[in-house]
């Protein structure tokens, strides 16, 4: 055990600095992932076979690849075809398309869980397909999938730790840097774990609260 309080306390400011990057990356990936997920789920909901196949193929692929592989594939692969992007951009793209695939699955299940009578009623009132989705199906589906979406946000936040391999100064990277300089593992990593916990626990609590809410409303 090489825990030392002063090292732990001294490391906190730079860890918090790294945490800002982690949160910013996760937030950006969450927003784009949500946009991708909702869009692909809607394409799937058109029931137009080529779109359905395309969406199913893509989400299956992205859910099967480890994020680390996608990340490195883009980081080293894109430059070789002449696309030069910053590490942060690559990280956001990799996380957004991976999360987007999971969000697609979640949204698709949510949309399919809405009673067919709702769509019939919307249609019978003269709504177009787009209107029935926007006004009737999606608002209900969103409510239903909020708990799994928060779960996905937790996974995403934790997965951001992977971006430290492409030299982004995130929370984990801040910890490993301190470890190298101070030749001490335990103190900075206790800090790293603590900061991750502080970030994820509110989401875990939110998830539990939403699950309860769904149970309440089903009673």
């Amino acid at each position, binding site marked *: 055990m090489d825990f030392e309080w002063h090292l732990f306390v001294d490391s906190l400011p730079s860890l918090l600095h790294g945490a800002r990057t982690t949160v910013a990356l996760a937030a950006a990936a969450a927003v784009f992932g949500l946009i991708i997920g909702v869009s692909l789920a809607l394409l799937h909901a058109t029931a137009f076979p080529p779109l359905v196949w395309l969406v199913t193929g893509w989400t299956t692929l992205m859910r099967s690849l480890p994020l680390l592989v996608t990340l490195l594939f883009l980081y080293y692969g894109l430059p070789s075809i002449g696309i030069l992007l910053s590490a942060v951009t690559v990280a956001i793209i990799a996380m957004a398309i991976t999360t987007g695939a999971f969000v697609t699955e979640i949204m698709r299940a949510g949309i399919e869980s809405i009673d067919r*009578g709702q769509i*019939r009623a919307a*249609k*019978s*009132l*003269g709504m*177009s397909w787009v209107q029935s989705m926007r006004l009737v199906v999606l608002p209900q589906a969103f*409510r239903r999938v909020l708990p799994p979406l928060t779960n996905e946000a937790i996974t995403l936040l934790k997965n951001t730790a992977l971006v430290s391999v492409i030299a982004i100064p995130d929370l984990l990277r801040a910890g490993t840097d301190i470890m190298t300089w101070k030749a001490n593992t335990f103190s900075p990593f206790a800090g790293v774990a603590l900061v991750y916990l502080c970030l994820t626990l509110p989401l875990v609590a939110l998830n539990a609260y939403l699950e309860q809410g769904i149970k309440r409303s089903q009673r």
Partner: protein
Amino acid sequence: MTDTPIKIRNLYKSYGSNEVLRGIDLDVQRGEVVCVIGPSGSGKSTLLHCINGLEAFDSGEIVFCSEYVGWGRESGGGRARVSERAMTKLRQRIGMVFQQFNLFPHMTVLDNITVAPIQVLGEERNNAIERARALLSKVGLAHKADAFPSQLSGGQQQRVAIARALAMQPEAMLFDEATSALDPELVGEVLGVMRHLADEGMTMVVVTHEIGFARDVADRIVFMDQGVVVEQGPPNDILTMPTNPRTREFLTRSLGA
């Protein structure tokens, strides 16, 4: 304005190998109330769904207020599918009330009623709200404007559903067993609203198990069995002296119960 808003000719529809409608002919006059009765599975719901284009049919013809539903005629004499856009327009002019109410659970009663007039017809918001309130008074639910569907009884939900359909100012209303999902003591309040609507001259096609309602309100009763119209006529004739044995048997069972 035609005098025969609904014209159905030789309508056929199957689900796979199951022939559900087998040559239906039916005309509904403006202001007429037609009650459709018949055993379970005879195709009554399917017929209503075809009339407002919720279901596609295989052959035959439906004309609603001079517009083809589902399939139209090409100038050359062939058949052409009516575009989805045209069908959407058409549905705006036909109101439908479902057995399961199908109110939108995430909207208040008022929003349920105003959403289509505002979003689909582009009606001005205050106008739509004003009309929605008038419709709510008409169905006896003025005090429930801000409630959510889950806070209402089945009978109240169905009355809201009727108001929601009426808010589109439809030229005809289709009712698919509007009272079948209700507790017996709530049936009367919904039938009352429907009766009132009939008195006001609304063109109505009512699929129902309520023989009493059909007798009192219908201008004509249509008896369907196994996808065909077996017999039709004024309530008195059909209910008291049916000529077809299938009609007689059905009535004995429903009235005897």
